[in-house]
């Protein structure tokens, strides 16, 4: 260990990463540290990176699970480019994460795990401590294994059980490093486990870690970080994970429409977290149906919508693809439905636990025939709340299925969330006539939507189906002119939604200028952070949540910039849409590595565009 800064208090933010085996409880530890950070009043953003294997063999590189958090007193927009602190529970965790670190980063390693066997499993030829591999970093060696087992000795746990407390020991130490109070974490442990021994041993390990920091020589080798509270606007806050915010938003929409919601899904990574969360939300009038596959799940949601509930279905690439045919049924029968796509790396099984935003063109164009559908997108973890409400609102108001795009990164990232007040939201008006039904297919003049007449309604008997229907009567029609009329109707109905959505806003920078950085989805934070860093008055961020149809002013807005740069975690899909729909000619900046954008790479690209 060499020349060590004692504290980083002069910096406004720091990125720290925890990494270990899939079975080490890294995600749990990280999530609790984030909570604790929130309660400390600091802003933060987190990102989880874990393997597709459930619990890959201990010590292997592909089994490494990581949790990254960027926190501080500044406004935090991303989970951080490159960590300044790494806690590595074993050699594989060190190996995998080394390339990501800031030069000069502090690496806390668990020396207990640096056995020959583990080094071999991580494919280190030599113990990296004995080589120059770590020379540009600050190494802190701690036998976390030993400290843990010693701390919980008195519980007489088996070796493996004792070892499972080590994430709590490490968490304790980190809490000390950041000057957090451990009481909140202790009461969390009390609630987290049922078994008394587990509770006590984990609490003991946590305290051991904390006091170890406080009392031992560590204080001389580890810096302490004290961030003054961030500058939050006033209100109530909680830490929220992307998939949770989406779930809350769906429930909020059901409340605003005053309808029950049926969430019908089939598990798939990274969409399952939404299924899990909603499974716990019965009190909000939400029912969950886990179907036998994705087709059955969207069909059950369509059935529920037909029955007057809000049908919602959710999946990822492979599963969304399977829903294609059924989406067209919902389009043709004009039933409200929300289809949530948690995008992941592809094609095919691809990289199930890695993030990507490459299902945009599928969402917009990926169905047989002319089958338009509104497409919305979530930009940040907490954003999902509002977007989910918007998706349900459009589905019901315009009687159409809606695709809502999010991704693995958003679902698994979190940040503090200024809690909304549902009472301030506009109610979602439903048109479910119950009496005096004169014309069953009489469309609303402003939305072109048909009424939502549900089975059980007296005087409303009618039939719907996937065959082309007559514009007036809704009966089967093979008439050529009627088909043109209905095709136009379907297109105009969706285009017309642009009259009901907000104008596109500029997220950062002026409304005209040299360069517009146009993004969508989870790149919001990284783009925003990079523009803040550059702080060039000619560069603006325009981030699109309403993708189909685009906001009415988007074309004009973008034409106010000399250049349009579109960074995407795909090979240029929003760019394709901007060309097709708005006749623009944007510059594409693509990254398809399964990893989110780094602020640094965006800054580089933006500067390049400015210099060019």
């Amino acid at each position, binding site marked *: 260990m060499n020349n060590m800064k004692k504290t980083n208090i002069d910096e406004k933010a720091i990125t720290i990463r925890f990494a270990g085996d899939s079975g080490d409880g890294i995600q749990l530890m990280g999530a609790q540290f984030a909570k604790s950070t929130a309660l400390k009043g600091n802003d933060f953003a987190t990102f989880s990176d874990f393997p597709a294997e459930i619990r890959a063999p201990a010590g292997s590189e592909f089994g490494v699970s990581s949790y990254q958090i960027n926190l501080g007193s500044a406004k935090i927009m991303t989970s951080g480019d490159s960590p300044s602190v790494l806690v590595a529970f074993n050699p594989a965790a060190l190996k995998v994460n080394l390339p990501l670190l800031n030069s000069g980063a502090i690496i806390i390693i668990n020396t207990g795990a640096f056995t020959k066997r583990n080094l071999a499993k991580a494919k280190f030829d030599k113990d990296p401590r004995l080589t120059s591999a770590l020379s540009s970093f600050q190494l802190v060696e701690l036998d976390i294994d030993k400290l843990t087992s010693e701390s919980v000795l008195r519980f007489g746990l088996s070796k493996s059980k004792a070892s499972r407390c080590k994430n709590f020991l490490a968490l304790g130490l980190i809490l000390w490093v950041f000057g957090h109070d451990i009481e909140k974490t202790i009461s969390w442990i009390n609630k987290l486990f049922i078994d008394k021994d587990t509770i006590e041993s984990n609490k003991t390990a946590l305290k051991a870690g904390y006091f170890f920091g406080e009392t031992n020589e560590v204080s001389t080798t580890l810096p302490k970080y004290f961030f003054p509270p961030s500058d939050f606007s006033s209100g109530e806050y909680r830490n929220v994970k992307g998939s949770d915010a989406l779930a809350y938003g769906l429930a909020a929409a059901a409340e605003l429409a005053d309808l029950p919601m049926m969430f019908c899904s089939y598990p798939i990574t990274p969409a399952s977290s939404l299924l899990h969360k909603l499974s716990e939300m019965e009190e909000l*009038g939400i029912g969950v149906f886990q179907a036998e596959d994705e087709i059955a799940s969207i*069909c059950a949601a369509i059935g529920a919508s037909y029955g007057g509930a809000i049908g919602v279905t959710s999946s990822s690439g492979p599963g969304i693809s399977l829903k294609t045919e059924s989406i067209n049924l919902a389009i043709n029968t004009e039933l409200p439905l929300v289809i949530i796509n948690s995008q992941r790396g592809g094609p095919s099984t691809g990289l199930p636990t890695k993030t990507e935003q490459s299902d945009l063109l599928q969402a917009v164009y990926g169905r047989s025939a002319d089958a338009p559908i509104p497409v919305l997108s979530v930009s940040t973890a907490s954003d999902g709340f509002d977007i989910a409400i918007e998706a349900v609102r459009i589905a019901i108001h315009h009687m159409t299925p809606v695709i809502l795009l999010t991704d693995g990164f958003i679902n698994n990232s979190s940040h503090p969330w200024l809690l909304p007040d549902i009472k301030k939201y506009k109610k979602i008006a439903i048109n479910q006539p119950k009496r005096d039904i004169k014309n069953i297919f009489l469309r609303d003049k402003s939305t072109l939507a048909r009424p939502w007449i549900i089975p059980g309604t007296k005087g409303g008997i009618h039939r719907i189906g996937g065959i082309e229907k007559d514009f007036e009567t809704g009966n089967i029609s093979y008439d050529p002119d009627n088909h043109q009329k209905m095709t136009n109707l379907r297109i105009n109905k969706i285009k017309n939604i642009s009259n009901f959505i907000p104008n596109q806003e500029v997220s950062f920078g002026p409304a005209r200028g040299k360069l517009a950085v146009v993004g969508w989805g989870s790149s919001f934070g990284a783009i925003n952070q990079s523009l803040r860093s550059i702080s060039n008055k000619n560069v603006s961020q325009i981030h699109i949540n309403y993708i189909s149809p685009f906001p009415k002013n988007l074309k004009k807005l973008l034409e106010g910039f000399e250049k349009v740069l579109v960074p995407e975690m795909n090979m240029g899909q929003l760019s394709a849409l901007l060309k097709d729909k708005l006749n623009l000619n944007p510059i594409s900046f693509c990254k398809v590595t399964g990893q989110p954008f780094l602020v640094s790479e965006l800054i580089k690209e933006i500067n390049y565009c400015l210099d060019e």
Partner: protein
Amino acid sequence: MKNKKNKLEHNFSSSQEVRWCPGCGDYAVLKTMTQTLSKINLSPENIVFVSGIGCASRMPYYIETYGFHTIHGRAPSIATGLKISQPDLDIWVITGDGDALSIGGNHLLHTLRRNLNLNIILFNNEVYGLTKGQFSPTSRIGTKSPSSPKGSIGSAVNAGLFALGAGGTFIARAIDTDKRGLGSVLESAHFHKGTSLVEVFQNCIVYNDKVFSNFTSKENAIDFQIHLENGKPLLFGKDNSKGLRIRNNLELEVVDSKNNKDDILIHDETNPVLSQLLLSMEPPEFPVALGVIRKVEKQIYENNFYESHSSKMKRKVSINSVIRNGDIWTIT
């Protein structure tokens, strides 16, 4: 009485033109179906017909109730979502052998195992009618068709045995033109609590004419049909002269009913072994079992759903309080 029935029946005929081939067995089923609905005497607006794709699946258009003509093979899934959201509706699923057993086999399996209170009417004509006559999974091996000019090569699926393996709680069969048999089976299906599967042997006059004549034709009816009644002996043939008994090796045999009175099996809708044996019978060795073959009680999915659902799908709290529950903090 007769008049009244006719009046009621009228309620269930929709204004849409019927578009099946002249002579198609579907007409007879439609007729018996509307008559049964009249007899049950439910309000039409509380009935929904959900169908897949195929000739038979056009039926919802022709009945004056709510109707949803969905996509190929998925009607059971759509009906499932509908039933959970509105458990009080009387839901009939109309499907064909291709719709239910080819593309839709998986949904049928899971619907049967979950046991929602739905009535599934499977029109088996052993052929894909709507797409012009290709062999289907119920077509017998060797069936010649546009896609199997030299005869199909895969052995057929037996709808009833499949349903039995899937844990079906109600399995019945009827012949399209057998008003009485079909009518009573449809009625039983309606009153059964759980998923009812009714296989209707339906004649496709265009692509598979007379494929069931080995037991449906006038000459064959008496010797190759056995109409089941729960608790009654398994008798058939002229003057019930024949009966079914079980042999030591657990196989069925047809015997002279007079000389073997005590051996004749009694129909028991709840016995799975009997269900299996009856469903397996085929001419010429055996008669075809018609009527309610199996009927047992099992937990009903939507009942379990609402019983375990803490708010019964009616919101009890506001999202405002839910998001404020747990670790929150206030900035002032």
